[in-house]
């Protein structure tokens, strides 16, 4: 049997369940387990119901289990809402000072904290410590993790922890498993930030918008990464500032969600026309409009593919977990500079904010690549007509070069024109798009999981990959994950579809946007499995719907 635990910790906003969940995940990680944490919270500051659901397993899983092995309740709400999912041998541990329950184990976490002279938030330390004793995690390991994770008043926290540990009883024994080395626990947003920094990002411009905000918060906190974080007055300013910085030679990126991206589309069009490199992170949340800020829908795929007025050559890349965010954010920034065009990294709320195990060796694959630069001879032409459509870059301040970027249609020097000569520049950008298309076929644009030889295949992208991969492995069928979606990797897709007779698209939206994209490429999708309540798929949900379709 694969050791595979599901732990849910919940409470009201402000009680600290997210941090406590992260520490519990790190305890399991210390024992060798691979980790996936699903975060569920509401758009409020205090109160309500937040929870983190951890999957700790010998194997790599990136979906949450419906069944809960250990339920940790900081408040009554958590108990009431999740008790029904407690597995047969599951253990319920609750805040004994707040909750009365005949079942489960109450730990007087508030009393312990108060008596030790701690602050209310430190009750989390008591709960984690009580839990550790109950499930048989050594105090030594617990102490090591607490020392690493808690930055303030560690001695007081340890005193509280020790008391809770000593006064709790042991009921179970979590054993060590073969450890995974070189793994980091990262959210998709953190991984994205790290990938961009490794690829040479100098400026990150953003206006706060869930679920992209933690990218800017992380970059601002991690001063060693040397990325300057700028928070302008709105998303329109965000993208135009970033384009100015890119024009002057500094690698720049912006991040937002669907609504903010809507405001940026005018600037996206400018990036396309002026051939200014930019990486744009679009982390989807429930839409349309304000939608569900802290819940997930994959409803912006068609939007990012067609956003902006006019024909704009662009890359659209949709990583499905933090490891892919790390790799593809770095790749994306380099592509933006290589082809001097916008690159959209399309993620979603769960990819952004959930925590994954990431092999840190991925960082070694990312370099800060040098773009095609002017050879410093002859007249500099910003939009020199070339065969592959890419014109060498120079930046203001370069001696003997006059660098003119233009939002109007223009000639090679960047002077506005409206004559019929404009065709030449349109065709240059069209050739650039053809060059990008060829480049995509040489990149890891499509991934395959499960049984490669199955004639039944699933298509899933973004967070949906996690649960779809598990079901593909369980049922012995194939999973296809398109990652680079624009330019569309026709050859790679044709290759992986060989032998496939039935194809099903699994998506978190109401219409099946990826299915539409595939249809537009002449690929027939036989059925759609859709979910749109804001929460990602459980494996079982896909399985049930798939069985009906087959």
């Amino acid at each position, binding site marked *: 049997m694969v050791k595979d635990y599901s732990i849910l910790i919940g409470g009201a906003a402000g009680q600290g369940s997210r941090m406590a969940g992260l520490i519990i995940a790190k305890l399991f990680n210390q024992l060798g387990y691979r980790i996936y944490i699903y975060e569920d919270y509401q758009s409020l500051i205090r109160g309500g119901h937040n929870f983190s659901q951890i999957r700790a397993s010998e194997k790599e899983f990136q979906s949450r289990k419906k069944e809960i092995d250990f339920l940790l309740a900081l408040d009554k709400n958590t108990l009431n809402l999740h008790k029904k999912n407690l597995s047969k041998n599951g253990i319920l541990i609750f805040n004994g000072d707040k909750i009365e329950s005949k079942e489960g184990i109450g730990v007087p976490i508030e009393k312990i904290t108060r008596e030790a002279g701690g602050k209310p938030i430190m009750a989390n330390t008591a709960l984690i410590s009580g839990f550790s004793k109950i499930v048989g995690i050594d105090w030594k390991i617990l102490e090591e993790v607490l020392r690493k994770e808690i930055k303030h008043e560690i001695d007081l926290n340890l005193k509280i922890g020790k008391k809770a540990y000593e006064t709790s009883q042991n009921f179970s024994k979590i054993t060590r498993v073969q450890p995974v080395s070189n793994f980091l626990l990262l959210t998709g947003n953190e991984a994205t930030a790290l990938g961009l920094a490794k690829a040479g990002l*100098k*400026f990150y*411009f953003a206006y706060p918008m869930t679920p992209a905000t933690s990218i800017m918060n992380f970059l601002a906190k991690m001063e060693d990464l040397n990325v*300057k974080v*700028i928070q*302008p*007055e*709105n998303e*329109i*300013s*965000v993208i*135009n*500032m*970033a*384009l*100015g*910085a*890119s*024009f*002057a*030679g*500094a690698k*720049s990126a912006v991040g937002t969600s669907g609504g903010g991206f809507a405001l940026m589309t*005018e*600037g996206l069009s*400018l990036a396309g026309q*002026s051939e200014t490199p930019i990486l744009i992170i679009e982390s989807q949340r429930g839409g349309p409009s304000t939608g569900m800020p802290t819940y997930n829908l994959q409803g912006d795929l068609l939007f990012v593919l067609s956003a902006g007025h006019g024909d704009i050559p662009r890359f659209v890349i949709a990583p499905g977990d933090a490891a892919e965010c790390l790799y593809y954010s770095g790749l994306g920034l380099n592509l933006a500079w290589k082809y001097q065009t916008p690159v959209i990294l399309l993620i979603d709320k769960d990819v952004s904010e959930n925590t994954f195990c990431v092999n840190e060796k991925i960082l070694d694959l990312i370099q800060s690549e040098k773009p095609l630069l002017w050879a410093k001879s002859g*007249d500099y032409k910003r939009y020199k007509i070339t065969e592959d459509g890419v014109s060498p870059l120079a*930046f*203001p*301040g*370069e*001696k*003997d*070069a*006059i*660098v*003119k*970027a*233009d*939002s*109007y249609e223009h000639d090679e*020097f*960047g*002077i*506005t024109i409206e004559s019929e000569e404009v065709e030449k520049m349109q065709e240059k950008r069209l050739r650039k798009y053809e060059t990008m298309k060829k480049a995509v076929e040489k990149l890891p644009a499509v991934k395959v999981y499960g049984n490669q030889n199955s004639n039944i295949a699933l298509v899933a992208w973004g967070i949906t990959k996690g649960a779809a991969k598990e079901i593909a492995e369980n049922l012995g069928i194939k999973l296809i994950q398109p990652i680079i979606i624009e330019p569309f990797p026709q050859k790679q897709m044709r290759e992986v579809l060989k032998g496939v007779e039935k194809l099903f698209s699994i998506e978190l939206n109401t219409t099946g946007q990826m299915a539409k994209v595939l249809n537009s490429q002449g690929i027939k999708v036989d059925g759609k499995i859709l979910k749109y309540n804001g929460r990602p798929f459980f494996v079982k949900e896909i399985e049930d719907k798939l069985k009906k379709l087959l």
Partner: protein
Amino acid sequence: MNQKNLDTYCQNTWCPGCTNFGILEALKRTVSELIERGIKRENFVFTCGIGCHGKNVDYLNLNSFYGLHGRCLCTAQGIKLAGPNLKVIAFVGDGDIYNEGISHLIHAAKRNSDITVLVHDNRNFALTVSQFTATSPKGFKGSSTPQGSIEEPFNPLELILVSGATFIARGYALKIDHLKDLIVKAIEHKGFSFLEILQPCITFFDNRKFYEERIYEIKSPLSKEEAEIKIREWDYLNGEKSKIPIGVFYKVEKPTFEELVLKG
């Protein structure tokens, strides 16, 4: 293109006699003077929005980013962040920056970004064949307001003062030497410099006579209190008897946005 020449081969498409020619001439004299004083030609960068003012960058043989309507101050700030040694100058229009891009103007002033803003205020959207802007007088008869605009204008200098600009001046497009001196001062100022240029639109709003009867040069420097009084002397309405002061109204030294971001 010849590196020495400040003109490009681009055909000029302003109306014959357009007062933008005055601003362009003052600007070229400014650049020549500053190059003589040691600023490298390659370190000048211009941005602009969309409107008659924007054509300047096509006519100038210097680095430029022809941006979006209302957004070029954002682009200018991005350029300055990435190239702190560059002299970043933004041409903007009244519709461009007092209407479409007003939030960017206020915030650029608030953060004291070290850029120079030259507003070509012809007090109407001219390139779209005349509609009222934020500085058109009440009653302005444009193509969208044939009975006269019902909105009162605002005084952009008053707005920019409370927004935190550290250099505030007003010039007149047809007083070229005076205007050149103002542009030099604006570029030399460390911090956000704002130069409002009254630029009569000879086709749609020819108020040359109105301006020339009222304009007078002020003596600088002024205290903030004196600047407030001078700025309020004319409120952009028409027909009244008040005079119109031009010159440098306000100048103060403060750390710039870029210095604070890039330190350390």
